[in-house]
C-alpha cells in the first residue's frame, strides 16, 4: 500500500514536471496549477487514500507528499517567472520601432544675436547694481551734441556722421544723450546703463547706418579711472564668458577727459597675434573716460564735488567677436539661414 502510494506520488511528480516543461503560456500554467495542486487536483486525490495507512506509514508518505508539493510549487514559480519574462520580451519585440527615423521636429525659434548680447548686457549691469535707462532715438542737437561738449562747427562732429530731419532734429548718433536725460532728472550717486539703437550716416563693409550701443555712467564722490577699469573688466569678461586682459590707450572723446580706447585680448588667437587682430594680439572694443566737467556743467552737477566715468560699446562688435560673425551687414539682412543659427 505504502509502496503503491509512494510510486504513484513519484509518477505524479514526473508527469507534472514533464507537463510543466512543455507549458507555453501563463494561462495554461494557471490551469495546470489547478490540475496538479488545486483543492480538487491530482495530488489531493492521491492523498485522500492516506487515511487508510498506519501512523508510521502515513508519516513517511506525508513527508514524501510534502516534498513533491514543494518541489512542484517551486517549479511553478520558476516557470511563471520565465513565462512572464517571455511575454515581456515578446511585447518589446512587437513594439520595437526604427529609432533612426527622424523625430517630430522641435519647434525652434531664435533670438537675434545682437538682442542676445543686448539682454545679457542688461542682466550683467542690473546684477552689478546699475539702473537701466532709455532715451528717444529722435533727438535734438542739444542732447546729442552740445550738452556732450560737442559745440557746432567743432571737428569732433566729423567723428559721427549724422542723419538729420528738416526741423533740425536728428537721429541720435550714440547712446550718450541718455546720460544727459538721466543726469537732468536724477542726482548723484548715479549708476546707469543705456542700451539702445543708434544711427550714423555711413554704409560700407564695416558700417551699417543703424547699430546698437550700450552706454554706462557712474557718478559719485571720488570715482576714478581705476573704478572704470574694474567695471569694464567685469562686464567684458562676463559677456565673453572668459578671462581677458585689457589695455587702455589714451584717446579723445569730447564728453570725457581723460579718454581712452579699450583693447582686450584677441579672442581669436588668445593674444598670440593673428589676421583679425592684425598680429597685435589686441582687439579694440570700446571707448571710455572720466566725465568731462563741461558735461557736468550742462546738467548742474558740481564737478568739484562729483566725478564720474562713462563708457560706450558697440553691441554688434561684441556679437561679431563672440559668435565669430565676419560680416556686420548680416545682422540686418534678416536671412533665416543666418538668424536660425543662434
Amino acid at each position, binding site marked *: 500500500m505504502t509502496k503503491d502510494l509512494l510510486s504513484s506520488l513519484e509518477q505524479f511528480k514526473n508527469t507534472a514536471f514533464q507537463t510543466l516543461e512543455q507549458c507555453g503560456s501563463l494561462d495554461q500554467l494557471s490551469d495546470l496549477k489547478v490540475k496538479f495542486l488545486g483543492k480538487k487536483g491530482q495530488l489531493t486525490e492521491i492523498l485522500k487514500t492516506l487515511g487508510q495507512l498506519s501512523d508510521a506509514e502515513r508519516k513517511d508518505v506525508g513527508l514524501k507528499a510534502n516534498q513533491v508539493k514543494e518541489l512542484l510549487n517551486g517549479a511553478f514559480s520558476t516557470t511563471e517567472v520565465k513565462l512572464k519574462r517571455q511575454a515581456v520580451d515578446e511585447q518589446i519585440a512587437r513594439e520595437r520601432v526604427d529609432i533612426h527615423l527622424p523625430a517630430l521636429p522641435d519647434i525652434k*525659434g531664435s533670438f537675434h544675436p545682437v538682442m542676445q548680447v543686448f539682454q545679457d548686457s542688461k542682466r550683467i549691469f542690473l546684477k552689478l547694481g*546699475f539702473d*537701466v535707462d532709455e532715451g528717444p532715438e529722435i533727438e535734438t542737437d542739444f542732447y546729442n551734441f552740445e550738452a556732450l561738449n560737442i559745440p557746432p562747427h567743432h571737428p569732433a562732429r566729423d567723428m559721427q556722421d549724422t542723419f538729420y530731419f528738416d526741423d533740425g532734429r536728428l537721429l541720435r548718433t550714440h547712446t550718450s544723450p541718455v546720460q544727459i536725460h538721466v543726469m537732468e532728472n536724477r542726482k548723484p550717486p548715479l*549708476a546707469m546703463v543705456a542700451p539702445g*539703437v543708434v544711427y550714423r550716416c555711413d554704409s560700407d563693409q564695416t558700417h551699417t547706418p*543703424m547699430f546698437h550701443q550700450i552706454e554706462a555712467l557712474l557718478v559719485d564722490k571720488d570715482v*576714478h579711472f581705476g573704478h572704470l577699469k574694474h*567695471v569694464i573688466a567685469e562686464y567684458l569678461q562676463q559677456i565673453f564668458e572668459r578671462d581677458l586682459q585689457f589695455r587702455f590707450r589714451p584717446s579723445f572723446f569730447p564728453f570725457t577727459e*581723460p579718454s581712452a580706447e579699450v583693447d582686450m585680448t584677441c579672442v581669436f588667437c588668445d593674444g598670440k597675434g593673428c589676421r583679425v587682430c592684425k598680429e597685435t594680439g589686441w582687439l579694440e572694443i570700446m571707448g571710455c573716460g572720466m566725465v568731462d566737467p563741461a558735461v557736468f556743467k550742462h546738467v548742474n552737477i558740481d564737478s568739484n564735488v562729483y566725478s564720474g566715468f562713462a563708457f560706450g560699446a558697440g553691441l554688434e562688435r561684441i556679437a561679431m567677436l563672440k559668435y565669430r560673425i565676419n560680416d556686420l551687414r548680416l*545682422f540686418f539682412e534678416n536671412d533665416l539661414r543666418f538668424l536660425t543659427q543662434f
Partner: protein
Amino acid sequence: MIVSYKWLCRLLPGLSEMTPETLASLLTMAGLEVESVTSFGDRFKGLVVGEVVQKEKHPDADKLSVCQVSVGSEQFQVVCGAPNVVAGGRYPLATLGTTMPDGLVIKPVKLRGLASSGMLCSAKELGLQAESDGLYTLSKNAQAGQSIAEALGMNDVIFELGITPNRGDALSHWGVVRDLAALTKLKPNYAFLADDFSGAITWGEAPCSVQVKIETQNKCARFTASEVRGLKITASPAWLAGRMQVLGLRSINNVVDATNYVMLLTGHPVHAYDARFVADRVLKVTEANSNLNYKTLDDQDRALTTGDLLIEDAKGPVGLAGIMGGLNSEIRDDTTDVILEVAQFSAEQVRKTAKRLGIKTDSSFRFERFVNPDSVLEAHRILQTLIVHLAGGEPTQIVDQYPHQLIKTKIEFPLGQIKRLLGYELDAQTVATYLRGLECDVTEQGDVLHVTVPGHRSDLTRAVDLVEEIARLHGLENVPIEAPRLPCKRPTESSLGRSEMDFIQHFVERGFVQTIHYSFTETQLLRQVLRDDETQWIQLKNPLSEDLAVMRPSLLPQLLMTYKKNHLQSEAGLKFVELRSVFRKIGNKVCETPMLVGLYSGEPYGRNRFGLRRSFDLFDGKGWLEGLFAKGKVNTSIEACETWPYHPGQSVTYKTDQGALAHVGLIHPELAQALKIKKPVFVFEIQAQLLADFWKKDLPRYQALSSQPAVFRDLSLVAPVELSVQDLFQEIDRLKPKELKDIRLFDVFSGGSSLPEGKKSLSFSISYEDSERSLTDEQVNQLHFALVEKLGQKLGLELR
C-alpha cells in the same frame, strides 16, 4: 595722417635705435594711434633698377621689343610691350618671383616664342599712380641693380596715424616729434630741413613789394607774405619726389612740393601764388559780402556766401582762405616769381565754408583743428629757404601782420586732481618734468603747479586736460583697478525694459525668429502696404539712399518683405517677431512707439509622417497672443478688427480698458494681391508699452490645493449661429456655481442633416470640484443640470 619713419628719425636723433614696430606701439599708447605700418622696402621687394643695354624688335610681333636688361651683376632677357622703352634707359624691373603690389607673381614666360625673365614696370604697376602710359622712366643717377625703393627715395616705413580732433598740433612731423621727445626724453633737431641741405634757415633782405591787408575783424589772426623772384620751376629731386610719394602725395614740381613739404613738416598750410597773376601784388584777407561763384584750383566752381573768407588781389578773389588756392594764380611751368603766404585763419570759419562746399583739403583739415599763429613766421622762413634751395631765385623780406596775438593759457593745476581722477599719486617734481617735456612752463607752489601752455596746444585749457596729459605720459596701465562703491538700492528699469524679454521669449519659445530691420525704409513700400496719413511720416533730410529715406510708421511693410525674401527657404512655417519703435509726427510732436510685431504663415511642420498636417490660421495667433496676455495677467476682450491691412473676416482686435492693445489676423486680400503673396500670411501688432504697463502688476498669490477629485461632464448645446462664444462664456461666468472649476469648448459645427437651419452645435467639457467635500455623482448632476437650465432660459439654448 601719414608720417615717415625716416623723417622722424632725422628730426629726433637717437630715435632710429627704436624699430618701427616699437615706435608704433609707443605712439599708440600715447594716444597717437598707429592704424597701419607700411614698409616700402617690403612693398617693392624684388623690384630693382634695370638698365636696358640692348633693344631689338621682336621678330614675330610688331609691338614687342626684346630687351637685354642689366641689373649690374646679371643680365636678363625681357620682352616688353611699352612704346617708350629705349636702349640705355633705366626702368623698374620686377625680377622673377616678385609679388607685385596688385598680387601678380612674376614668372618666366615665353612671349611669341621668346623667353622673358622679368617685367619692366609702369608707375601704375608699381601702385604709384592710378593711370600711366608706358614704363616708369628712372633718372640717369639710378644704379642698375639698386632697389627701387632706394632709387625712388622711398626706402622708408610709414605710419598711418589716427589723430583725434583735439590734437591739431600733432598733424605734422614736428608735432609727432614733440610728443616723442616728451616720451623718450630725446632732444629734437627742429633745424633739420632736408636730406640734401646743411645750411641754415634764412630769409631775404630785399624789400617785399606785396601789400597785405586784413579786412576781417577776427577771422585771421596772422598773415605773412614774401616773394621769391627769378626762380626756375623744375621737377623735384628724387629725395623730395620720393618723400611726397611715400606720404601719399603726388610730386608736382619743386615749388609746389616745397609747400607740401613745409606743411607736412611744420603743420602750417602754406600757399604759393604765381606773382604775375596777383594784381598789383595786393593780398587782402576779406569776407565775401554777397553770393558769388569762384573757380578753385581743382577747376571747380564754388558758390560762396556772405562770411566766407577770401584772399583777394586788387581785382578779386585769388583763393579761398585756408581751404584752396584759385585756378587763376596757380604755379605753372613758366612761373618765375612767386608770392608766398603763411597765415592763421579762424578754425570755425574754415570749417563752415569747407563743410558747406563739401571740400576737405590738407589745409582746411589743419586749420579746422587749429594752427598756432606763433609759429607762422618760422614756417614762412623754412618755406622761403627751401624754395630758394630747390628753385633758386631771390627772396625778399617777410611782411608780417599779427593783429590777434595769441595769449598763452595759464592753468592752476592742483596735484590732488591726479589722485582724484586717476587713482594714483605723483609728486610735484615728476608731474612738472612730464609737463616741461611737453614744452609747458611750470612753476611749483606747494601742491599746486602753475602751468603756462605752449601756443600749439590749444586743447589744454583746464586742470583736467593736464590730468589727461599725465595719463598719456605716465601711462594708464599704472592706474590701479578698484571696485567702485555702488548706490545701495534696487536698480530701476522701465516697465517695458523689464518685460520685453518675457514678450520676445514667449514668441521664441513658440518658434518665432527674432528679426531687426532698419528704422528707415522706402516711401514706395510704405505706400504699397499702408493706407495712411502720409503727413505723419518722417522723412530724413540726408538719407543714404531712396530705400532708406523715411522713418517707418509701421513694422509690417518690412516684415512682409522679409517674408517674401525667406518664404522659399523653409517648407515648414515661417514665424518672425520684432520688438522695436515705429515713428510718426503728429502735429509738431514726434511719436516713437514701441511695437511688438510678428508674422506667421505656412504649415507648422510641413509635410511629415506623423499625420500632423494643417496650415496656420487665425486661431494659432489668437492662442499665442492670449497665452501672452494670460502670462501677464492682462484682461482683454475681443472684437472684429476693421483696421487696414487686416482681413475683415479673419482678424481680431484685443481691447483693454485703455483702448486697443493688439490686432491679429490674415492680411487683406487686396494687399496680398498687390504684393503677389499667394499663401495666407497672418500678422499681429501689439502696443508693447501698453502691454508692459499692464504686465504682471500683481505677483501670483498661492491658492491652497484641493485634495478632492475633479468630476467631468460634457455639455452639448444648440445655439443660434449669431450667438458669439465670447458672450456665451461671459454668461456662463455669471451663472456658474462656485464648484465649476474649468470649462473648455472642444467642438463647434453647423449645417449637416442633424441641425436645423441657422443653428450651431457647441460642445464643452466642464470640470466640477469642491475643495471641502468629495462631490457625489448625484450632486454633480444637480449642479450641471441647474446650469443647463439657466442657460436655456437666459439664452434660449437647447441641450443636444
